[in-house]
């Protein structure tokens, strides 16, 4: 008899692996990133950027916007036909916002996929594990207690991502410990319940902090609702190093995440140090989540929607899921942001509301199809 591994709730019941193909000698090729999927991811990012820059309260011709984006490259001079004011809208207002959306989406999706691999749990997501709440508490603590006044959210102090990271790592450690308290009877759902409890506790602490510092309530709320609207290049530069470290560590471990799907003991028998890999990946994923949360506020479900869709379409190997999550996660959030700022125009709705509307039904779908959530 064999156990079915946690890992993949949404894989179709087709007899042939989703990412299977053969080489010129008709040999089956091992799982990995296929060039067509890579191309698809790059196209999705390019389209998201152009569309994200072209549409908004002022609609601009996508072709002209594309030309203006190319003009940003050294040595390129194309007449885009846009006025100076329209060029400013593209390069100064919308571009940092779109780039930040790409970075945040990429990190949330990569972190979600990493958490799912580390915990061997399809429901693992930065928000459901309490990581985002921990990061949120860290940001709130810095924003609420800092002594300077002014526009706190448009120019976040450099220490904010670090505070968010400390909060995120504390939260994931608490969730893990609480989830493990069930001993042998614990299930993937136990971990999520632990995450819900940790989230509730940390949110309560956050509320307490906000109540104690009412003078900074506006800044904190503005951040909580998602602040891509006020994104500037400062935010992009603030988050970029964290994104680079997170993505480098997680992507470098994509084969090890595949090995971890057979469980710790079998992975050990294959020569791996599962705990060592797990700690490193948890820290990296939490760092990425913290950086994303510190500049964008609380945006949920990206870490579930993107990796699961890719798992369904491009195969179950983390060697394809992780790099594709990077590309499609970024494109997904850039499109979602576009929806958030145009669907109820001229007013904007918080981006977290849009991802929740998409993510909640998706979560139910994953839960229904998951063969290993019930005890």
């Amino acid at each position, binding site marked *: 008899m064999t156990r079915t591994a946690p890992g993949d709730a949404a894989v179709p019941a*087709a007899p*042939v*692996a989703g990412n299977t193909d*053969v080489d010129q000698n008709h040999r089956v090729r*091992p799982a990995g990133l296929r060039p067509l999927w890579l191309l698809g991811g790059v196209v999705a990012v390019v389209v998201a950027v152009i569309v994200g820059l072209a549409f908004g309260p002022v609609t601009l011709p996508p072709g002209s916007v594309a030309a203006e984006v190319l003009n940003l490259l050294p040595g390129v001079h194309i007449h885009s036909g846009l006025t100076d004011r329209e060029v400013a809208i593209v390069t100064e207002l919308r571009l940092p916002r779109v780039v930040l959306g790409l970075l945040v989406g990429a990190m949330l999706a990569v972190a979600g996929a990493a958490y799912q691999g580390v915990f061997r749990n399809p429901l693992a997501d930065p928000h459901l594990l309490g990581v985002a709440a921990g990061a949120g508490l860290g940001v709130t603590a810095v924003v609420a207690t800092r002594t300077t006044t002014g526009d706190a959210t448009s120019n976040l102090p450099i220490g904010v991502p670090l505070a968010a990271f400390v909060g995120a790592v504390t939260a994931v450690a608490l969730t893990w410990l609480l989830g493990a308290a069930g001993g042998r009877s614990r299930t993937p759902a136990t971990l999520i319940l632990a995450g819900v409890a940790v989230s509730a506790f940390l949110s309560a602490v956050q509320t307490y902090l906000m109540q104690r510092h009412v003078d900074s309530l506006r800044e904190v709320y503005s951040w909580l609702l998602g602040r891509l609207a006020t994104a500037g290049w400062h935010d992009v530069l603030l988050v970029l190093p964290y994104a680079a470290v997170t993505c480098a560590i997680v992507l470098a471990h994509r084969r090890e995440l595949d090995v971890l*799907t057979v469980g710790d003991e079998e992975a050990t*028998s*294959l020569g791996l*140090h599962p705990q060592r890999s797990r700690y490193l990946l948890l820290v990296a994923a939490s760092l990425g989540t913290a950086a994303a949360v510190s500049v964008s506020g609380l945006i949920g479900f990206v870490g579930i929607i993107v990796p699961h869709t890719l798992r369904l379409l491009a195969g179950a190997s983390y060697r394809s899921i992780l790099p594709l999550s990077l590309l499609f996660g970024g494109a997904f959030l850039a499109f979602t942001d576009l929806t958030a700022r145009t669907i109820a125009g001229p007013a904007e709705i918080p981006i977290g509301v849009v991802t929740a509307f998409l993510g909640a039904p998706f979560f139910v779908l994953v839960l229904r199809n998951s063969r290993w959530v019930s005890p």
Partner: protein
Amino acid sequence: MTAAIAARALTVRLGGNVVVDGVDLDVADGEWVTVIGPNGAGKSTALRAIGGLLPFDGRVELHGTAVDRLPRRRRAMIVATVAQTPVVPPGMQVLDYVLLGRTPYIRPLGRESESDLATVDDVLGELDLEAFAGRRLDTLSGGERQRVFLARALAQGARILLLDEPTSALDIGHQQEVLELVDRLRAERGLTVLTTMHDLSTAGEYADRMVLLSGGRVAAAGTPREVLTERLLAAHYRVRVRIIEGGQGPLVVPVRTENVPP
């Protein structure tokens, strides 16, 4: 013959309980030894400890090197373990599953080389699994899966094979098929095989020697004819059996207590 496996005073504690208690066990190079014993006797635990997967007291040497001193990757090149209930990762194709066996040969954060792929191709061919390479593991039957589990272990290139209840989920035909396969591979590749098994007759047909564990201790060790006796099995399994001489070894036939004439 040199000892491939040598365990001395092997003791394993799980949750504060002594599960394996001072076990001495030797397996010669190229030998097939099967550990038998009632449920809870410590068979699987002993096997996992010998494979370096559990902390233990005492000493376990694989080809003369203490297992707990071997770096993990080096250890995985020496000993391959097939668990009693291997995890089947959903959606993983057979080729990728067997490639996991090459993990000890791939540098950390690296990827498979052409040589790793060639090794796996050879193993799939040897186990007649080429047609399954692109199939999803979770769609295969029990017998097919067991061959894939063996293929992953063989891809490790280890000369010691630890098999925990390799036939427990298989029908009698597939049991025989898998054990014949292990025996053929043992002969062709010079493997040393240590298994645990519940089916005593089948175990006796394939093993060179048997070790009977009871209460975590070695109750008997020797050839199948020396271990599979009515007296020993009655004492440790609390069952009445008849031993019948078979072609390859003694056959153990359980007998209902109330039907047995006094």
